């Protein structure tokens, strides 16, 4: 797989993450659950930034960035704060897996970008009741 294909795949995933966090932001109350609201808002801004960086990287290379889908299927309920946090945690864990995959399929500046994104996603997991992992984004190594 070329690094352009890997970046396009990551961008497609990032589009999904932005969409999910937009949904979660609308299901979170700034007054009733301020910590969760802050964490969701922060994650939303972070993923928008990552998406924009990927778009810029691909555009600078003369590529046409993949577009977002009109909507995405969400894997669980979003009607309680616990459900919002669980879906946000699932999103960050999935993003961490995507970034670690990007690390393996790129080099140089793109790999450095992916490593940073992986580190940031791993830390964001903690804001959604995640617990430290031995291998964020590469959980199969934990079974050794």
């Amino acid at each position, binding site marked *: 797989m070329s690094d352009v294909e890997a970046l396009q*795949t990551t961008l*497609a*995933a*990032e589009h*999904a*993450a*932005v*969409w*999910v*966090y937009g949904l979660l932001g609308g299901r979170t109350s700034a007054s009733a659950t301020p910590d969760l609201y802050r964490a969701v808002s922060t994650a939303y801004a972070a*993923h928008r930034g990552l998406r924009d960086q990927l778009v810029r990287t691909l555009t600078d290379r003369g590529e046409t960035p993949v577009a977002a889908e009109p909507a*995405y*299927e*969400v*894997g*669980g309920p979003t009607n309680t704060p616990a459900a919002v946090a669980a*879906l946000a945690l*699932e*999103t960050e864990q*999935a*993003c*961490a*897996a*995507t970034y*670690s*995959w990007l*690390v*393996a*399929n790129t080099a*140089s500046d793109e*790999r*450095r970008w*992916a*490593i940073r994104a*992986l*580190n940031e*996603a*791993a*830390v964001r*997991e*903690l804001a959604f009741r995640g617990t*430290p*992992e*031995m*291998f*964020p*984004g*590469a959980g*199969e*190594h*934990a079974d*050794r």
Partner: protein
Amino acid sequence: MAGCGTEREPAPHTPADGDGALVDDVVAQITAVAAVAANVTRLAAMHAAHLAALDASPPGPTTSTATGPEVRAAERAHQRYLVEAALRAESGPLARLLASMSAAVSQQLAVPGRLA
């Protein structure tokens, strides 16, 4: 699907031929920082898991005289080292493993609580 959720085959840790010296260096680095953080159970467990993933022996039983700030500083330096090691790796799967280790250290540093 919860964003970033594309399923992919996990990449096994398979160092390229040119990565042998890098793996040896990483093992030595983890062993050294594990000695500094030996009194912190969660860090000791992480370092042991990371060594196992590199097919290296776990560090022997030891105690550390390092203070909390010293442990934190050592882990911060270790995280940066792992990032650079991931960038140097010729093998993509090894780069992925080292990057994941750096993220694990980042998580530990972000967890509230003392490190001594």
